């Protein structure tokens, strides 16, 4: 007697197996027409194999994970820059990037975003370009030229109407922005703006020029460049610089498919679970790009220890290692003397539960075979 797919599904539903295995079973049994006996045999075998694959209790998974990520580090390249995906944008890769992820830096050395657009925008090159112009931060150099007049002691900005048209900004708006940012008055004659520093000194003048150059007149601050690329049948924007929160709100941007490599930003905007996933994804991508295979479980564990208490913490002295419970473990890692002095005034007690502490006092560590105790059953 063959079971219908529905009956099979019902039987599978109640199993105590991970989702991935259940899905595999479902896919494999779809329309296969198994008998009940066969199904039971399959389930029994799958369950037995799953049981065999489980980690053993007391396994030192932390050390294994650390070694599995650290060991390939020796094989990675130091070449900081590499072109990932787009030839136009440089991204830090290899060992420096891995270190950056683990360090939980506030801002990565090369922040980038991958922006995907809404259905209405994604297939239209012009619309995509419009979004790109809107996002890209425009400085005065994008819109025209800047010069100084030493005789009059003022700054002359000549705006290019074509460029302004492209970036959808008018000279009046530019003048407004400059006024706002510098607090100085702006003399506007058509497309020529003239500004003078408060104090008419040569130094002030040059400083003003530098300041004007830095002002973001339009677009999102920090996004220095936007590149459009066609991927499959949709246009995708790649940016140099990252500002997740602001970019998400733009018209045309699909906020569910936007990506940034700034993990902290993800943590702030989308929450700690998203940050954890970002760490996993970034680390996996970095390792894969180098042609190194590392099981996700190891990376997950690193991501989890970095994010357990709700904020992204560094692997190292200012994060996970610096907040350990044991004084001896902290002292044996870095800044030895300070940890001991602080422990003394607080009157800390070291419970000697971790690895380093027990190595220091010279007794078996409580991990792996060292954590097993025998229990005799009463006859």
């Amino acid at each position: 007697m063959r079971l219908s797919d529905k009956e099979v599904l019902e039987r599978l539903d109640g199993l105590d197996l991970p989702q991935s295995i259940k899905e595999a079973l479902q896919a494999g049994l779809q329309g296969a027409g198994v008998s009940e006996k066969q199904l039971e045999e399959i389930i029994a075998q799958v369950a037995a194999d799953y049981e065999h694959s489980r980690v053993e209790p007391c396994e030192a998974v932390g050390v294994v994970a650390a070694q599995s990520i650290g060991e390939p580090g020796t094989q990675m390249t130091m070449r900081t820059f590499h072109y990932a995906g787009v030839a136009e944008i440089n991204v830090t890769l290899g060992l420096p990037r891995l270190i950056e992820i683990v360090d939980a830096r506030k801002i990565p050395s090369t922040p980038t975003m991958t922006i995907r657009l809404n259905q209405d925008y994604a297939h239209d090159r012009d619309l995509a370009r419009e979004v790109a112009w809107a996002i890209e931060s425009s400085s005065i150099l994008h819109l025209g030229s800047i010069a100084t007049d030493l005789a009059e002691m003022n700054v002359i900005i000549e705006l290019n109407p074509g460029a302004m048209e492209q970036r959808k900004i008018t000279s009046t708006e530019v003048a407004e922005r400059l006024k706002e940012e510098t607090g100085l008055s702006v003399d506007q004659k058509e497309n020529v703006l003239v500004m003078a520093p408060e104090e008419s000194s040569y130094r002030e003048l040059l400083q003003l020029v530098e300041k004007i150059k830095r002002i973001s007149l339009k677009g999102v601050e920090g996004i220095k460049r936007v590149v459009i690329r066609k991927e499959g049948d949709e246009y995708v924007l790649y940016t140099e610089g990252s500002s997740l929160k602001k970019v998400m709100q733009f018209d045309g941007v699909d906020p569910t498919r936007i990506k940034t490599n700034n993990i902290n930003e993800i943590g702030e905007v989308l929450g700690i679970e998203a940050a954890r996933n970002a760490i996993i994804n970034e680390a996996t991508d970095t390792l894969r790009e180098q042609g190194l295979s590392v099981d996700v479980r190891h990376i997950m564990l690193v991501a989890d220890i970095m994010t357990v208490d709700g904020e992204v913490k560094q692997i190292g002295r200012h994060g996970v290692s610096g907040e350990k419970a044991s004084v001896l473990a902290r002292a044996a890692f870095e800044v030895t003397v300070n940890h001991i002095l602080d422990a003394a005034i607080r009157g800390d007690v070291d419970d000697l539960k971790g690895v380093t502490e027990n190595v220091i006092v010279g007794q078996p560590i409580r991990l792996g075979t060292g954590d097993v105790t025998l229990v005799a059953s009463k006859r």
Partner: protein
Amino acid sequence: MTVPKRIGKIRFGLISPQEFRKMSVVKIITADTYDDDGFPIEMGLMDPRLGVIDPGLRCRSCGGRPGECPGHFGHIDLIAPVIHVGFAKLIRKVLRAICRDCSRLMLKENEKNMYLEQIQTLERLGQMTDDVVNKVFSEARKNKNCPYCGAPQQEIKFERPLSYIEEGHKLTPSDIRDRFEKIPDDDIQVMGMNPATARPEWLILTVLPVPPVTMRPSITLESGQRSEDDLTHKLVDIIRINQRFQENREAGAPQLIIEDLWELLQYHITTFLDNTVSGVPPARHRSGRPLKTLSQRLKGKEGRFRGSLSGKRVNFSARTVISPDPNLSINEVGVPMDVAMELSVPMLANARNKEQIKTFVRRGPDRHPGVNYVTRPDQRRIKVTDKNCEEVAEQIDIGWGVDRQLADGDIVLFNRQPSLHRMSIMSHRVKVMPYKTFRLNPAVCPPYNADFDGDEMNMHVPQKEEARAEAEILMRVQENILSPRFGGPIIGGIHDYVTGSFLLTHGTKPIDRQGVMELLKKFEVSELPAPAGVTDKKPYWTGKQVFSLILPRGLDLNFKADFCYNCDVCKGEDCENDAFVVIRDGQLLKGTIDAEAVGAFKGKITDRIIKEFSPSVASEFLDRMTRLALRGIMYAGFSFGIDDEDIPKEAAEQIDDTTRTAREKVQQLIEAYNAGELEPLPGRTLDETLEMRIMQTLGKARDTAGKIAGRYLGLDNSGVVMAVSGARGSMLNLTQMAACVGQQSVRGERIKRGYAGRTLPHFRRGDLGAEAHGFVESSYKDGLNPTEFFFHAIGGREGLVDTAIRTSQSGYLQRRLVNALQDLEVKYDGTVRETRGMIVQFQYGEDGVDASRRDYASTDNVLRIIKNVLKKESA
């Protein structure tokens, strides 16, 4: 058996002056060490009550001999209190937070309670209290008047390194101590201190501990002169100043002198505790070398914590150079006789092994396997010598212990640094061998990352039954074939093993009976398979048949070999290049065995065997494979010489053509650039675009040259065999040797630096051509011209620098990762927790699957099970 004692906890705290005086064995008053006869002076720095270091003497405090007596602390009574440098910042914070009159913490009662509660909650949860405590200090400091006695507060300025200035007057340590003494216990708790273990006034020293002599031993030089430890020198300084201070004060010296001496005393005690305080000139030895004082002893890699406490030294270990021996099993290690006779395994005589042990003892220490020491039941150890061995052997009885020399079959741990992963230490079975090196099967090189260019490895002999059991069950090489990093085999064929398997199994070359016998010489094969055919009335076999003999029955496997050309349409089993491997029931039907099948890190066959059969079957397979592969390579014959890099004349001409056209194309690009006709790539400047285009052109030229060379170098070329089978090297290496080395680069760009506008003085300024920026047109075989050679050296140097930096960076990354994660453990409920019991993962890896056994829980495995069950039914 006694239950081993376990240290449960360690409590940290400050020591109070009273307590310290109580535990001190002697008050030190003289700055001298030894008298003229070389005996320690009483109440001097080497007082015999502080412990002993000279052999033959006994400690006057505990009666122990050197080595037994741990040493005892003495003390120096300081004439005036002195600040402890380590706490300078804390003292500043406390001073600013308490009232200068009534010494109470300047916070309101309810605030204190609130903060105290927060601190206690955090402590209960095992978390850091720093943030709350800092808040307490900063809040308390804000008060201009004491909320209790109303006294107006003055700002206290802190000057590095150790001065506290209030209203322009320097506060003396005595003043500070007086204030601190009055702080009530409750307030101390709010400041994050524990009044029982650390009262604030103890931050200011009135009595200085004198460490026992055992931790500052003096060395007797060859000349008979004594050289004292750095700490002793420092203590001498302290006592001298202390005395002078006392004399001056008693003599009623002027305030100025007293203050100077006080400061000097402070300086010496500061440097005694820490000689690297910024703002304090480090105390120096007569030779000008800075002294190594207390905190320097603890700090850093070679310091007490990392160097001595976390890194222990061991006995029963050996280290020597390693060399290969393919005849050993992967589970074995060849141990030199000299090492085997030095190292030992303890054995306890019992009724069953008494006689056997006697025979060991009778052999003495010089005839392997003998005995080096015996232990009588009363724990006295007797050295076995050639002379007394017979006599001792007679005495052996139940309860005696012997240290038997290392012999064949013993389990030892084998290790190569850097120990980057757990496969860097594995256990092997001993095989005692002549000569002086450790021998190992080259197949286990990958996990150790070892080669034989002079590498040394360490061996450790477990001394206890438990240790041996763990080593044998968990650490054996065969148990570590699968790497937990990616769940694949990390042990497998390398170099000649791969070449040998390739040569043996590629195609269907006939091998006659004699050849087959030659190949199978080392195997116990009782029956040959049916011959593949007959030529000249002689039966012949194929290499595939021979290889099948070492495969376990019941193995079914299909995969693409490493040298698969990745054709557009894979023909699968009908592959005409013999690159698709088909194994049915342990018979290699089609395909060639190369790195993909048996190599380290790939090894599809090894992988399947270990998962479908067992680690022992896999290790057996690897042993046989390594032997057969070497027979295979010897049978076929294999060598690589300079003439293997020869390419025919027409090939060389074609290559010349390619490079010439490439150079011309570069020239065209440059002309286009100069004429302003070059289109910039989006988002790139014109210069960058030009560079990229040139790099592209030259890169393509090298590839084309390689392809041309490759066309003329076929599988009859040893280099190609090695590259294609994955044994060693790549086609790129061959290309560089035979055809064209290609563009040299620094940081991914062409070589630009050197002189202004040019790389070398014999190029024109601004020359952008191929030769001027490091394109090496020659092959290694032809030789490089001087400029090419120079550019090649530049490119090569970058590689060297890169490696040097990478090792240090990745080493530190590894250390940090291990330190952060080392305490994590899977508990019996499947959660991953750290020492406090905080849950890091509710289920390890979200599915509770061990990474090295992940294949059992994979989709593929599920589908295979379904297929097998359904097949069984239909059959």
